[in-house]
């Protein structure tokens, strides 16, 4: 219509000038405004990294679309709600921070990614948050970051609860968050300061509180402690199962984060039963399932970037024990035949050769005898519901199956995968070789100082430099340290044989 009016008026020269003004006001200015708005709020650009390891640490899975925290909100929340953290910053939740050149911590921990979406830089977690940790050879030594190892220090329950509690706190508002951003050097422009961030704070608060409602069952669980997550009760939240009505036997099922190395050997030459209970045989499906934990949804997942991670974990290998501590080659040599006799059939010939009749297959619960809660948390009902995930996409999930035991894992980098058993209820390999009754009834988790004798993390110290470690009680539901015991499991070997066996497993 505007153009039509214009054409009629343009013929009359006294109107020409007025027309131009009108044209500018009604067409040019709005168009410029639209162009500016599109530029300011359109776009969907993640921060990318050329190196596959940097991408693993900081690359995006696409989870920021749905769950991303505006960068500055993420940054200042630990200081807005310090009372909901066990100590200072995200560090106190056991998140791993790399150092800047000046020795200070980087702005974001390993396992977080950034993406500019709808005009805001957003931050959320990626794969590395649960699959990267640190090792120290002694309490006074600097930590070494190991990619792909279980995030043994990361307190995921604490992480979730921090956001849920903070969002419910009156301080989660622009009156408290904006000044804190300014104090910490966030120089928001006028638009950010008066429009974008106030709106974002309100939206985030709603979103996190909505999620808190769906996850309120977590607060009623026994503490997971660092390095563990209740994977498949969390998966039920995807379907919005009314968790308050769940069979109580399905709860309290935390399991250790797994390592991510050598995935190719888990799909070739034959597909292994993945996850602790072996409920899926497809690496790619398992990966997409895990990516729900990084906030992705079928329409928002960034498959291109996830495939970079997938490719990398196919081949990546764990660091060897000998890079950190010496291995007694002769003793290890003596352990080799013991390993072959007792362990290889289920756990593979070595840390790099996964051949073995039962490797990657499920051992029935009655036989393995380990704590059954993780198994029971995964139900047939959940399995069939999972087959609806990614409906309408060619990669709809089709491989989830209810099993009735735990899968025999290959042992690549097993020294870094302590504590042991699916629920991390045995602190060291040496202690796993003891009958259940002789294993520690309680111990501390979350220390990254390594114990090269027992082969596991130091578990008898209540505190290191940071907040106290987590006291793991094997009598709590889901924490049982029984099973994987008896003659066939090596718990009746002599002390010398056990020492030799453990030495051999240091070579994995």
């Amino acid at each position, binding site marked *: 219509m505007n153009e039509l009016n214009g054409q009629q008026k343009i013929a009359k020269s006294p109107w020409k000038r007025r027309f131009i003004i009108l044209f500018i006001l009604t067409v040019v200015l709005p168009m410029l405004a639209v162009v500016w708005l599109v530029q300011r709020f359109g776009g969907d650009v993640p921060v990318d990294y050329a190196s596959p390891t940097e991408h693993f640490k900081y690359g995006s899975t696409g989870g920021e679309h*749905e769950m991303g925290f505006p960068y500055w909100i993420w940054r200042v929340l630990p200081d807005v709600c310090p009372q909901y953290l066990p100590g200072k910053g995200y560090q106190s939740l056991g998140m791993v921070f790399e150092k800047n050149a000046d020795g200070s911590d980087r702005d974001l921990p390993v396992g977080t990614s950034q993406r500019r979406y709808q005009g805001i830089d957003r931050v959320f977690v990626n794969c590395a948050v649960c699959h990267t940790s640190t090792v120290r050879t002694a309490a006074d030594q600097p930590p070494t970051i190991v990619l792909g190892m279980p995030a043994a220090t990361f307190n995921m329950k604490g992480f979730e609860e921090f956001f849920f509690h903070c969002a419910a706190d009156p301080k989660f508002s622009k009156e408290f968050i904006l000044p804190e951003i300014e104090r910490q050097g966030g120089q928001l422009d006028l638009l950010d300061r008066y429009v974008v961030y106030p709106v974002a704070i309100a939206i985030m608060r709603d979103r996190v509180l909505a999620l808190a409602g769906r996850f309120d069952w977590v607060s009623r669980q026994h503490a997971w402690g660092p390095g563990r997550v209740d994977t498949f009760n969390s998966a*039920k939240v995807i*379907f*919005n*199962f*009314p*968790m*308050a*009505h*769940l*069979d109580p036997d399905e709860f309290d099922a935390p399991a250790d984060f797994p390592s991510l190395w050598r995935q190719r050997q888990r799909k070739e030459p034959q597909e292994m039963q993945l996850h602790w209970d072996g409920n899926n045989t497809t690496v790619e499906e398992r990966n997409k399932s895990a990516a729900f934990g990084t906030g992705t*949804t*079928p*329409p928002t997942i960034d498959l291109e970037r996830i495939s970079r991670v997938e490719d990398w974990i196919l081949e990546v290998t764990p660091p060897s024990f000998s890079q950190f501590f010496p291995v007694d080659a002769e003793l290890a040599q003596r352990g080799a035949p013991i390993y072959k006799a007792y362990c290889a059939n289920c756990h593979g010939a070595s840390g790099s050769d996964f051949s073995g009749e039962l490797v990657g297959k499920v051992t*029935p*619960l*009655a036989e393995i005898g380990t704590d059954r809660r993780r198994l029971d948390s995964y*139900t*047939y*009902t*959940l*399995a*069939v*519901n999972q*087959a*609806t995930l990614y*409906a*309408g996409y060619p990669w*709809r999930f*089709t*491989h*989830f*199956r*209810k099993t*009735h035991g735990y899968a025999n894992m290959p042992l690549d980098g097993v020294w870094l995968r302590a504590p042991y058993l699916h629920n991390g209820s045995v602190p060291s390999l040496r202690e796993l070789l003891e009958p259940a009754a002789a294993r520690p009834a309680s111990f501390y988790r979350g220390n990254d100082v390594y114990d090269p004798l027992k082969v596991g993390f130091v578990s008898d110290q209540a505190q290191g430099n940071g907040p106290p470690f987590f006291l793991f009680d094997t009598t709590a539901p889901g924490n049982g340290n029984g099973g994987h015991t008896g003659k066939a499991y090596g718990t009746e070997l002599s002390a010398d044989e056990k020492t030799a066996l453990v030495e051999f497993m240091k070579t994995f």
Partner: protein
Amino acid sequence: MSMRSCRNWFRAIGVVIIVTIVVGGVIGYDRGFRERPQPDWVTADFETRFKYGSIGAEHDAGIPYWIFYVLPRVFPEKLTQDGKVLPGGYASLGVPWEQGQELPAGFSKKTIGFPRVANNCAVCHTTSYRESPDANPVFVVGGPAHTTNVEGFFRYLIDCAKDPRFNADILMAEINRVTNLDFIDQLLYRFFVIPITKKRLLEREQQFAWIYRPDFPDWGRGRDDAMNLTKYFMIGAPMDDTFGPTDMPSVWNLKKYVWDKGHRMNYAGDSSDAYSVIMDSALGLLGAAPANKQEFVEQVQWLHSYLSELPPPKYPFAIDQAKAAEGKALFDANCASCHASELTGRPLALAEVGTDRGRLDSWNKGAAIKANQVVKEMGLERKGLVEEDLIGYVAPFLDGIWLKAPYLHNGSVPTLRDLLEPVGQRPTVFWRGYDVYDQARVGFVSDTPAAKRVGTRLDTGSIGGSNQGHEFGTALSAAEKEALVEYLKTL
């Protein structure tokens, strides 16, 4: 402006309008009504076709796929059983759901403009059993769906539609979390599909009024009030006070029914033959006259031939053959006169058996005449419902009897072993629809804590739920009963 340029303008505008209408019409047809065949794997073999193949119910009874998909996420607390919320999405309704399948057996997905979900025969005629609580279910096609809570499903959809949160804003928000609809589908869903679906589901509420009657018990898992469904839907009869819940029947080996021998189908012998039963049941699922009559008839014919030849399942656990041989003699003496004779498959006078009469009273000759009329007016040919007064229940064939628990037409006795007890000693309360098999008593486990959590409670004092009658063989000794039951496993 000249007349000519004015005319040109009109012409141009006219062309634009016509093009818009044509393009809009094509898009509207394509996205709203165009029928696309189901993928090949569905029809690749008879069994998948039975479980997942469309029988044409998507036209009138179909639920738009994405609405169906998100409802359990938006309204999880409405999935209830015996008044308790049961987590698990549609799986909590006990539908026979195979792992790795997008939909449970008995649910077909077909695109008619947009993907829609409807039901087929398998929803009530696919069953499952488990060897132990630590085993996965084995599904048996053609078996009575003893776990499926049909009434729960009907109610769930209506209850969702009644909720003010069943609206485009809330459903679209959830749909956008799980898929990427293009702009046209977004508009279609928001302005047509969601409001129309809500309206259609709310219309069902009036038709289904009797399933909300507080004076009737829930059907529970594995049962439906079949003839009242027919009465209220097919012939639009006014609601009466009858209530006749019955177990879903098995539909294997239908060739055993021979009209000439006096065999009649359905529990009260109210239908003439298998073909009629299949057609009438399919019409029930369609909820309307078939959109394509020829296709429909072909479907019914295929089902008829498939189910005629479908063999009954063999008992999958160990059988003590010696004991079974002893049982054979007892069977011949005590059971065969009704269950393996000329009388088998024919109605017996109710007084002779004495079981609950609710189902018998829920149907009558007048209804049969009307229903036959309705089907005839659709232009469909079949022998049809029996236009006679009904005398009692049919003495059933016992092929695959081991998988047809609970027993009697109304599923009021949990196991065969219990059925051999006098009425006074049969369980008065038990839980139906838990699929762990009880090899000792021959039937499903019905009173463990797990059975109570998963199953639905049946009180034999409830309307239509009496466990009375059929007191045959109840005087045998315990050892004889064990032997007889062992033999029944072989059928």
